[in-house]
C-alpha cells in the first residue's frame, strides 16, 4: 500500500492503494466516483476515459503511481465546465444515449476534441472518437451532437 495525493475535479484527494491499481479503480472504488466506467481494462473501448493533465486518457491502464501531479477531470465535473455542459446538453437534445454505459467516455472524448479543435471536421471526429466503442451503435447521433455542441460554443 502507498499513499497518493491526487487532484480530482479540482479537489485534493488522498488514497492508500497498491501502486499498480489503475486510476479507473481508484476513482470508482476509493473515491466512489462511478461515472467513469469499466469496459475492457486494456484501453480498447474508451468507457473509462478521463482528462489527465487535460489529455483524454484511458484510466483503466494508468496505474495510480504514474499519475503524479497531473490534474484528473472526470465526467462528474462536466456539468460545471462550459464545453462539458454544451456537450451534455447536445447529447440530451439529440437523444444520443441508449444503454448509456459508454457515454461518460464518449462525452469525455468529445469534450477533449472540442477544447482542442472547436470546429471539428468529420475526419477530426472520427479520429478523436475512434477509440470509444458504443455497443448500441449510437455513432450517427454522436456525430450530430458534437457538431451541435460546436455550433453552440461559437
Amino acid at each position, binding site marked *: 500500500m502507498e499513499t497518493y495525493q491526487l487532484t480530482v475535479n479540482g479537489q485534493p484527494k488522498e488514497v492508500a492503494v497498491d501502486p499498480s491499481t489503475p486510476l479507473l479503480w481508484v476513482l470508482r472504488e476509493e473515491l466512489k466516483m462511478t461515472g467513469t466506467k469499466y469496459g475492457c481494462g486494456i484501453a480498447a473501448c474508451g468507457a473509462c476515459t478521463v482528462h489527465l493533465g487535460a489529455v483524454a486518457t484511458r484510466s483503466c491502464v494508468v496505474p495510480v503511481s504514474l499519475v503524479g501531479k497531473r490534474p484528473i477531470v472526470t465526467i462528474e465535473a462536466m456539468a460545471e465546465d462550459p464545453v462539458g455542459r454544451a456537450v451534455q446538453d447536445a447529447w440530451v437534445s439529440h437523444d444520443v444515449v*441508449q444503454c448509456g454505459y459508454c457515454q461518460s467516455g464518449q462525452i469525455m472524448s468529445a469534450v477533449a476534441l472540442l477544447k482542442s479543435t472547436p470546429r471539428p471536421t468529420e475526419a477530426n471526429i472520427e479520429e478523436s472518437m475512434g477509440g470509444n466503442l458504443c455497443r448500441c451503435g449510437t455513432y*450517427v447521433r454522436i456525430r450530430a451532437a458534437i457538431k451541435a455542441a460546436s455550433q453552440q460554443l461559437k
Partner: protein
Amino acid sequence: MTTTINFANKLQHSRRSFLRVSATAAGGLLVSLYLDFPLAAQEGTQPQPKVYPPDAFVQIKPDGKILIIVNRLEFGQGVQTSLPMILADELDADWSQVIAELAPAADVYKDPLFGIQMVGGSGSIAHSFQQYRELGAKTRAMLVAAAVEQWKVRPDECHTEASVVHGPGGKSATYAELAEGAAKQPVPATVRLKHPSRFRLVGTRVRRLDSRPKCDGSLKFGLDLDLPGMKTALVAHPPVFGGRVKSLDDTAARGVAGVRDVFEIPLVKGRGVAVVADKFWTAKQARDRLKIEWDLSAVEHADTGQLSAKYKELARTPGNVAVSRGDQKAMDAIAPANRMVVEYEFPYLAHAPMEPLNTTIRFDGDRAETWAGSQFQTVDQMAIAEVLGLKPEQVTFYTEMAGGGFGRRAVPDSHVQREAAAIAKRLRGTPVKLVWTREDDVQGGYYRPMHVHRVEIGIGQDGMPAVWRHVIVGQSILRGTPFAAMLVKNGVDETAVEGTADTHYNIPNFHVSAHHPAVNVPVLWWRSVGHTHNAFVMETLIDELATRAKADPIAYRRRLLKDEAGKLHRPLDLMDEKSAAWRTKLPKGHALGVSCHESFGTGVACAADVSIENKRPKIHRVTIAVDPGIAVNPLTIESQFQAGVAFGISQLMAKGAITLKDGRVEQRNFDGYTPPYIIDAPVAVDVHIVPSSEAPAGCGEPPVPVISPAVVNALARLTGKRYRSLPLVSI
C-alpha cells in the same frame, strides 16, 4: 432516475398517501396481437386474465409528480420512456411531471404473453401496449370519479388534460388534489380507450427520460452498486467449457492484501474457483495469482476449424424438415446452367455488452436480496432461490439499469446468478458483487451459434427461383432449456430457421431443413437471433438472382414477394422513394446495396451507399424504411434503427468472430474480438416510418438483420465477388 434499491419499501410507504387502487384488467385483448416468440405459456392456451393493480404501476405524488413503473429491463431499447408514454397518454398526464422506475421481480410485472418477467423477442411494446393503455385509462377514470363525487356533477361534464380534471362552471382540480379521493373509488371493470386520433404522446417524438443521468455520470448501473460492507468476487473458469479443478494452490492469491476468501464453486458445467476481496483490483490480482491445474479430460474440446468441416459435410444431406412445399423433384426439370449450389459459413459471435456481466447478492439465511440488470428476472430469481435453498418469493430481486445486453442477460440457465448465489451462500450476511471481466465475457461462451448453410437453387425461365433446397447446420439454442417444448418442433429449433423457413418470397418448390449437432460450446440468442444469418443468406442470394436476371434489385424483390407481405412491400416502396435522390447519383467507386427483411412483426427495407476504403467497406449512407405498426415513439424507432444497423455491422468486422482451438476460445478482449467503432459504422442513417394503425410490433431487433446483406450486396457490385463466409476478413 433513482436506483431501485429501496423500491419495495418505497412502495409500501407510499400506499397511504398516494393513489391506491386495485383493478381487474383482462389481458385477453393482447392475444390478438402479433406474436412470433411464444414462450412460457403452453402452446394453444391463452394467458389467464390477469389482475394488474394500478398502484403497482402508477403513483400520483402530492407534488404532482407521476411515477410510472416499467415492468421490463431498460438497457438501451427505450422502454423506460415509451411504456410510460403509453400509460401517460391514456391518463392525460402532464408529461413534464412523469418519472419512471424499473420494477423489481414480482408476478404483477410478468410479460402478459410470455408469462415470465423478461425482455426478449422485441416484445416489450407489442405485449404491453394494451396493458399500459388500460392502466392509464382506469387510473384516469378513477380520478374523474373522484371529481364527480366531490363536485356533484356527471362524468360526461368533465374532461382531463395535463394532470387536471376540468368540470362545469370552471371547476378544476389537479390529479394530486384528487388522488386521495380517487383511491377510494372502485376500479372500473372496463374502460374506454382513446381513439388513436386523440393520442397526445403516442406517435410523437418524445426524448428519453434517462438521458441526463446517463450523460453526467450519475446513473447507477448494476456494476456501480456500492453497499456497506460489500465485497467483490471474481471466478476463475476452466479454459475448456465444463472442465473441473484437479488441484488448486491459492497461497499466492491469499497473500494479496484485501483478499477475504478463495474457494471452489460448482458451475452450470464443471467447476471454478471464486476469489472474494474487498475491491475489484484486489480480486483481479489474486485471481491472476491462482495456480490451478484443470481436469479437462472428460469434456469435448471443440475446435471451430473441425466444426466447419463437419458442418459442411452435414449440410450435404437434408436434416429435420422445417418446411416443405411444392414438388421436391422439380430440380430435375431445371437445366444445369440454371442451377446454383452455394455454401455459407457464420462464426460464433459474442454479445459483448459494454457493461460487463455482474450480479450482487446478500444472503441472510432465510432470505436474500439481489441486484442485477437482468432480461430474465423470473428465471434468475428462481435459480438464485434454488442455489440458496429458498423459495423464489424469499429472494427480493431489484432490476438494475443495464449497459446493453442484446440477449446476453436473458440466459435460461442463469449461470452468472448461480455463481453469484454459490458465493453469497458461503459469505452469509455479506453482500457480494460477482463481476465477469471483459475477458470472462469474451471467453465465457453463450455465443450466437456458428452456422453453415447450403442452398441449391433452380432458376425458372422467368429468372425467378423455382426450386429452393436449403439446409441449415448449427447448434440448437433452445434444446435442453424450458423453452424447447414451445420452439423446437420436429427436431427443428425455430430460432435456427427463422427468416428462411417463413420467408415472404414466393418460391413454389421450397424445402428447408436443419441439423443441430451437439457441441461443447454454450450458445444463446444474439440480438435478432436466427435472423442474423438467415436474412444474410436470403438477401444476398435474392440479390444475386436479381443481378443474374439483369433486374433492378428493388423491382425483383417486389415481384418475388407474396402480395400479402405488406410489411415488406410498404417499406420497399418507401425506401425506393426516399433513397431515389442519392441512389441514382452515386459517385464513382460507390455502389448501392439493398435488402429487406421482416422479423418480430416489423418489416424493414434498407439501401446502403458503400465504397471500399483501406480494404474495408465504408458505409456513407443508409436509408431505412420500416413498418412496425403504430409507431409509439418515432424518435426511439429512429434511434434504434440508426444504432441497430451499426450493431449489425458486428457481423462484418474483420475481427468479428469467436473461434476455438482445442476447446479454448482464441479471443480474449476487444483487441481480438472487435465490435464496430465509429469508423466502421454508417456515417449517416435516415429512417422513415410507414404510417400505420396496426398493433405495434418491436423495433429492438429488426434493425440488425438488414444491414450486413445490404453492405455485402453493394460490395459485390464493386468487386464482382460474392461474400459467403463471415466475418468479412478480406474484400
